[in-house]
């Protein structure tokens, strides 16, 4: 008997939900540091936030190897869910993954565990999806770079706390580099590889 009682459903309306989620992620990438909401709803496996689930259903497919951090790969539930709905391969080697989904952002491995892309194909780098506790309360970070008029202020409980120090490697690597999407519940903020930390508030 095929019993997958615990497997949550995907998007109710696949096409429109994926389109609106794609739009949110694209807007977030175009305006780094600004908070965007993901309106689409889907079933969500435990330990995965709504925004993460929607991004997974929208962007993951059989061509994008996925790496899950130890928190999310604790049970096989999330891997099964991803496999069923997106048919994306969940792999153990983080250095070749297209997306790394991090449930416990505080324990993010060193960035050089992930792929920075190649000079010929900088797009083949890893995009980190970090689930964090808050995107409204916490220390403020002033960001600057393409897509930001002057500086943008991002406030949130950013984990790991030295995320921007770590992302400073992007400056030297360009056009290679790591893109980050911060997710809290159904809100997202993107930190593409061109965004730099201007000042760090208290």
């Amino acid at each position, binding site marked *: *008997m*095929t*019993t*997958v*009682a615990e*497997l949550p*459903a*995907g*998007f*109710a*309306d*696949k096409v429109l939900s994926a389109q609106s989620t794609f739009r949110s992620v694209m807007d977030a990438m175009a305006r780094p540091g600004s908070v965007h909401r993901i309106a689409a709803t889907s079933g969500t496996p435990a330990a995965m936030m709504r925004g993460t689930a929607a991004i997974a259903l929208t962007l993951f497919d059989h061509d994008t190897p996925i790496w899950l951090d130890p928190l999310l790969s604790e049970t096989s539930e999330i891997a099964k869910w991803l496999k*069923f*709905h997106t048919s994306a391969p969940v792999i153990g080697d983080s250095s070749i993954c297209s997306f790394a989904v991090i449930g416990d952002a505080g324990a993010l491995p060193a960035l050089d565990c992930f792929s920075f892309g190649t000079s010929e194909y900088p797009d083949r780098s890893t995009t980190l999806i970090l689930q964090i506790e808050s995107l409204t309360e916490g220390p403020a970070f002033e960001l600057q770079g393409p897509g930001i008029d002057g500086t943008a202020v991002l406030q949130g409980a950013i984990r790991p706390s030295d995320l921007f120090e770590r992302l400073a490697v992007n400056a030297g690597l360009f056009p290679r580099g790591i893109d980050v999407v911060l997710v809290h519940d159904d809100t997202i903020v993107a930190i593409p590889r061109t965004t730099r930390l201007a000042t760090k508030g208290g």
Partner: protein
Amino acid sequence: MTAARDASRQVQRKAAMAVLAHADAAAIAGHLGTIAVPAHENLREPENGIVMVRGRIGGDGAPFNLGEATVSRAAVRLASGVVGFGYTLGRDRQKARMIALCDALLQSDEFADAVEANVLAPLRSAMASERDRNAAETAATRVDFYTLVRGEG
């Protein structure tokens, strides 16, 4: 014991799939309407896609890609947690969903007999009679050829 039961259930599901995939969507809907379908949700929304149809000439020919075919698929989960899958050629998403629903019902002890009796049996007999009718129509036009022996021997 359980393995044997699972195996026989697999055979039953395969046979059901063979009937449902070839049946008319309206006919499946009509027969499904006669049974009290329990609460269910779409685990995978019905969707269209394409599959590559591969062929080979003769038993030992090298496989080649014949062309692409449109398929629809769906997955349905009953409230009891049983999941059914439906695949069918063509773009009829509702048909794929109904096939998935039948597949799920077939796997639940409660509804298996009802589906077998009220959905599959009528479809199967309709297909058999259609096949017989075609065969009879074809047989009526049969021409027997024979070769005259030429007087060479």
